[in-house]
């Protein structure tokens, strides 16, 4: 018996391993972290993923391009509209299908509304993680208004399948257009209210300012994208760098900050909601009449043999679709390059040295969606 007991050396007497997740209220789903701690200080951290792996990529190889249409919105269910329409745009580009003007504008409106709803949910859960319950109730109130609007046009609240190759499934109603305009007006006021409620809060500032700083060289090393990158001071946004759809016709700013801590990531997202509303209002003003589906849609969706890459800006960053076609109706391979996968992989570098309690704010601030990481 005696030889089984090893006496710990002085160095590792007060270090220990802590398992966090997969069931943990602040890991936003089923993330698991293996933390090596010395007291409250993190020595090393290893995210363990795959608890929500649903084989989207294998499913793509088992069905044709049209049958895969419901999947993208379930990859990242918080920005499902952006994913689902992005997939349509990727296929449209591959087969050279033109989309009517009106459909393009409606797509932009829905995408931006979806981006706001995603950021709102992040806002609520992030503050919930930090101990503030009230903002969660506030932002869900606003989020429900967006879901009502999107429900009106697409018929679902969360996992939209609104886009079709060559356009959209439904035209929008006047109720939707009026409701969207009303929402934008009301939401501006609400954003100011959130600002008063949260941004100046001392506890919130102490728990976020200077916490979870991502050093600038990480951006290139890990391919960080989205609000996390913009909080590093880089104004990179797929909507601006390689405009897809009709994003080049709108005026909007790319909000950036420089400190790259949790607080800056928070401010960037708040400013992005403001910019999304600007885009929505411009699109509402310019919305033309006309059809919402392209006239000639091939019965068989089969891109020519080759490899295609198409990227959109989701609420979390650069979402890329790498499609390999062998010329048939069934994809040879679809690889989804998802933003949170890269953003989360930085945690092995960012977490060591921080406090255990800060893990929660850092994880919250990078805004992860687990099924999008695990696919």
């Amino acid at each position: 018996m005696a030889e089984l007991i090893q006496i710990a050396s002085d160095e590792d007497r007060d270090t220990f391993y802590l398992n966090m997740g997969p069931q943990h209220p602040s890991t936003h789903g089923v993330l698991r972290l293996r933390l090596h701690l010395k007291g409250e200080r993190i020595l090393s951290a290893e995210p363990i993923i795959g608890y929500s792996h649903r084989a989207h990529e294998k499913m793509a190889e088992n069905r044709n391009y049209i049958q895969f249409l419901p999947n993208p919105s379930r990859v990242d269910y918080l920005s499902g509209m952006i994913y689902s329409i992005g997939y349509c745009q990727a296929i449209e580009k591959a087969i050279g299908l033109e989309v009517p003007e009106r459909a393009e504008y409606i797509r932009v409106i829905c995408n931006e509304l979806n981006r706001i709803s995603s950021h709102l949910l992040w806002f609520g859960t992030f503050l919930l993680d930090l101990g503030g319950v009230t903002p969660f109730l506030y932002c869900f109130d606003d989020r429900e208004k967006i879901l009502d609007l999107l429900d009106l046009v697409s018929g679902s609240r969360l996992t939209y399948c609104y886009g079709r190759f060559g356009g959209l499934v439904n035209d929008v109603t006047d109720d939707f257009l009026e409701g969207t305009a009303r929402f934008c007006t009301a939401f501006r006021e609400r954003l100011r209210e959130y600002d008063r409620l949260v941004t100046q809060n001392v506890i919130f500032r102490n728990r976020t300012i200077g916490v979870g700083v991502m050093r600038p060289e990480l951006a290139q090393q890990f391919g960080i994208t989205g609000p996390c990158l913009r909080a590093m001071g880089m104004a990179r946004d797929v909507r601006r760098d390689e405009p897809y759809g009709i994003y080049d016709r709108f005026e909007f700013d790319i909000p950036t900050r420089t400190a790259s801590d949790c607080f800056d990531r928070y401010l960037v997202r708040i400013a992005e909601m403001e910019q999304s509303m600007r885009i929505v209002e411009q699109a509402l003003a310019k919305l033309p009449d006309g059809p919402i589906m392209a006239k000639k849609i091939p019965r068989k969706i089969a891109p020519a043999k080759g490899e295609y890459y198409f990227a959109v800006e989701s609420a979390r960053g650069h979402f890329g679709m790498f499609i390999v076609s062998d010329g048939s109706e069934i994809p040879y391979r679809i690889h989804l390059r998802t933003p949170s996968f890269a953003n989360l992989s930085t945690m092995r570098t960012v977490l060591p040295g921080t406090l255990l309690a800060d893990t929660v704010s850092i994880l919250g601030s990078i805004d992860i969606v687990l099924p999008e990481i695990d696919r």
Partner: protein
Amino acid sequence: MSEASGLAAALAGIASLKTAEAPDAKSGCQGLHTVGREAIVEVGRVFREAGYMLEMLTALDMRAAEQAMHVVYQFNRFGAPDRHRVRVVVPAGEAVPSLADLFGSANWYEREAFDMLGVRFDGHPYLVRILTEEGADYHPLLKDFGVAPAAAEEAAGG
């Protein structure tokens, strides 16, 4: 512009690198290259020094046509896109040098490619499965894994 031409010159210095003719817009890439696997670390270093990030890494199962796996690396820079897709053809069952020392993101990407398609990466610090369940003994994205699409359709009654 000088940066891009510097990159082109550096890439031209790699013997086994073959650059395809200008790809069309549909491919979403500005440059398509094929390189021998022994030179991929060198290619990675060139891109890293030019300020590019490893945007995507995945593999393709081409065993049916060429008895080989393709490992696809995609590099991109910040700002206006300059996307380079570099392909390494590797005989099935053989390993590719790892880029994990050059790019932090390669660590997880390579683990994913190993998990999904069974491509091994030499020099990877921790090449274990990342997505599939513990104790899994399969590589799901291989074409001979699971049910063939036609048989699946039949089984689903379609």
